[in-house]
């Protein structure tokens, strides 16, 4: 018996759909379709290259800071390829990292409280009014804490979304010590929320965990999520290739790395390729999203990839039991919040304000003829910007977002990451959950 169902996912109304093929009551293939296209890469052409710092953040309202960082990295890489010395002060690097961390923290918390928890509680059959959007007690608490971490960030970036604070050679802001204390005050509020509501233990204690048993002994929303998934037997679903990649400059891993099951190896971005297969840019295409590969193979990117690559003991323990299932994906993403808070606090404690914010190179913009690649680890994974500059103007711009790695389309014989995770699932609601766990962002997927 073979039936074909076309399912429209409510949460991402109108922007993405899953077309599911069923065989013997199991999903035999899934097509992931994105139907809207904005053409940002084309809009960037024939503009002065600095405009990329203002335009590329508008790819995505939730990961705009990551796009500025990738764009400035690409521009600085282009300068360096011309032999121009770009020296960033430690302070400038710390401010860029703090902003990126804050963006990831709010993104992970929104994902947990706005997307994952409402679904998890539904599995329990709970009609929990506390998580009701815009009104429920827990929803509001999470929303307030997201705006709190963004205040800490805006002290350096001016605003969020769509702040602009990066320039060639550093950052544009020039914070005072009082500003740092203010950022710390907001950060402390976020830490308090996460300890009380998400982890149920202090950040310090959570970071010392190396086994899933320790996590199960806590009482926060992370434990509740994991417990409910195990109880309802959805902890093992959503496995993909067990291949991970992290290309960005995150603080713990400077060089690109990949991880095959548990083995970590250096990666080389020259092996990254982008395919237009199945997209509207080619014949018989059905989506606007492209797909990204490394050495012609699909790799998963995101918090789970970062955690596997740094050999985080807690995530490695979940991985031993659940492989690259939805459960490991969820725990990796939420756990990363604790790491990010810890690192961000250290940045604020250590920052030296007497260092210069920006050391601008003196070469005129119009004399830049070069190409550059910018890497960055965004909330959902590796982000790449490639810029080609001729006499100071952009002649070509290419963006590969994390969701292009995870949510592209391959073929039935060689499905892409999310497609593979969906195949074999027996219930629509489970497919829905697995898909959401990748954090579907239509705007990032189709720039």
């Amino acid at each position: 018996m073979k039936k074909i169902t076309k399912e429209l996912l409510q949460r991402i109304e109108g922007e993405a759909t899953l077309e599911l093929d069923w065989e013997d009551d199991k999903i035999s293939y899934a097509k992931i379709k994105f139907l809207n296209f904005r053409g940002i890469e084309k809009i960037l052409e024939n503009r002065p290259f600095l405009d990329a710092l203002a335009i590329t953040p508008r790819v995505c309202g939730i990961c705009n800071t990551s796009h500025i960082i990738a764009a400035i990295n690409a521009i600085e890489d282009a300068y360096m390829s011309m032999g121009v010395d770009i020296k960033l002060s430690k302070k400038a690097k710390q401010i860029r990292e703090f902003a990126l961390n804050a963006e990831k923290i709010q993104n992970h918390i929104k994902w947990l409280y706005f997307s994952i928890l409402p679904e998890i509680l539904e599995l329990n059959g709970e009609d929990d009014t506390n998580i009701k959007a815009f009104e429920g007690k827990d929803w509001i608490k999470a929303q307030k804490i997201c705006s709190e971490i963004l205040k800490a960030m805006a002290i350096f970036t001016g605003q969020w979304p769509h702040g602009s604070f990066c320039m060639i050679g550093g950052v544009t802001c020039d914070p005072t010590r009082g500003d740092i204390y203010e950022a710390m005050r907001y950060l402390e509020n976020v830490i308090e929320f996460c300890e009380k509501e998400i982890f149920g233990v202090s950040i310090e204690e959570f970071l010392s965990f190396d086994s899933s048993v320790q996590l199960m002994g806590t009482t926060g929303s992370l434990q509740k999520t994991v417990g409910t998934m195990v109880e309802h037997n959805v902890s093992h679903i959503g496995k993909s290739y067990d291949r991970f990649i992290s290309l960005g400059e995150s603080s713990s891993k400077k060089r690109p790395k990949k991880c095959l099951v548990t083995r970590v190896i250096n990666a080389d971005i020259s092996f990254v390729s982008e395919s237009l297969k199945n997209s509207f840019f080619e014949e018989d295409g059905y989506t606007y999203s492209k797909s990204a590969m490394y050495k012609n193979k699909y790799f998963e990117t995101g918090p789970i990839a970062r955690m596997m690559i740094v050999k985080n003991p807690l995530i490695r323990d979940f991985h031993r039991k659940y492989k690259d299932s939805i459960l490991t994906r969820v725990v990796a993403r939420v756990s990363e919040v604790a790491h990010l808070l810890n690192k961000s606090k250290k940045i604020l404690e250590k920052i030296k304000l007497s260092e210069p914010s920006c050391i601008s190179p003196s070469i005129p913009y119009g004399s830049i003829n070069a190409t550059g690649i910018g890497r960055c680890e965004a909330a959902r994974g590796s982000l790449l910007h490639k810029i080609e500059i001729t006499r100071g103007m952009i002649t070509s711009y290419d963006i590969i977002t994390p969701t292009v790695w995870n949510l592209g389309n391959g073929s039935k014989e060689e499905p892409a990451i999310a497609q593979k995770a969906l195949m074999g699932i027996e219930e629509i609601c489970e497919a829905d959950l697995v898909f959401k766990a990748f954090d579907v962002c239509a705007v990032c997927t189709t720039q």
Partner: protein
Amino acid sequence: MKPDKRSTIVWLQGLTCNGNSHSFFNYPSIDIFSKSFSILHHPQIKTPFSIEEILASDKDIDFLVIEGALSRSDDILSRFDFSFEELLEKLSKKAKHIICAGSCASYGGIFRLQNEKKIFGALFNAKESGGFWKENSKVVNISGCPMHPRWFVETLLKLHFGDKLSLDEYKRPKEVYSYLVHHGCLRNEYFEWKVDCNDYGLREGCLFYEHGCQGPMTHANCNKILWNTVSSKTRVGSACLGCTEFDFPKKRLYETPKNMSLPATPYGISRRAYYSVTGVIKGFKIDRLEKRLYEEDN
């Protein structure tokens, strides 16, 4: 007058980055907002009703919020089971007010640049009137890339409470858009005395002369109410990009276009007035303004 029930909101997205949604989520008191409003549908958030259910219902809605640029072409903007054009027409007829959240919904914004004839805002195509609709008296524009959450919430509150809402020529609330970003900028003294910030990363100096700042000609109260309650672009040494105006994004956002080595004049100031004053002031060198405010010791 206190209305006896909450106003209903349906949020619809065209070609967008979701930035206005996330800006709205920064509003410091969404719980208090929810005492006056009930969001029936938001595409990014689990809300009580689907778009299909809203369409099938015979109930009217108080606010239709549009985020993102619009188009009447199916190949540019589409939904799976019905056309976006049809969807927007139907919803707009059910709505008492239409709120364009952000510059894309107001004028077409950044995404309009992909196809300037077929992508536009609700009532405007950049500066020209006539966008998705030629006329529609229900529309209020809250321009900005993104809009500030307070601009949005306070406009909705006025309409909810039945207060009078005066709009400017671009259908924007005057209370917000009569201000310029320049108002409240901490670099105002440097602007007055024509002292440029010689480099990035300094809290001193003005960004208007060399670094493309459009604060003196951009309508918005950013430096009055601040972003995320704490800061603004100019406060962190970055140029105002003019994101509330119909021509956002201009080309060369980080360079000041010059006419005979002079920058454009601030909004509503004649060239004669501005250049005469500039000429006089340029003759003076103010030592205090050439120095750092103070040196950081640690």
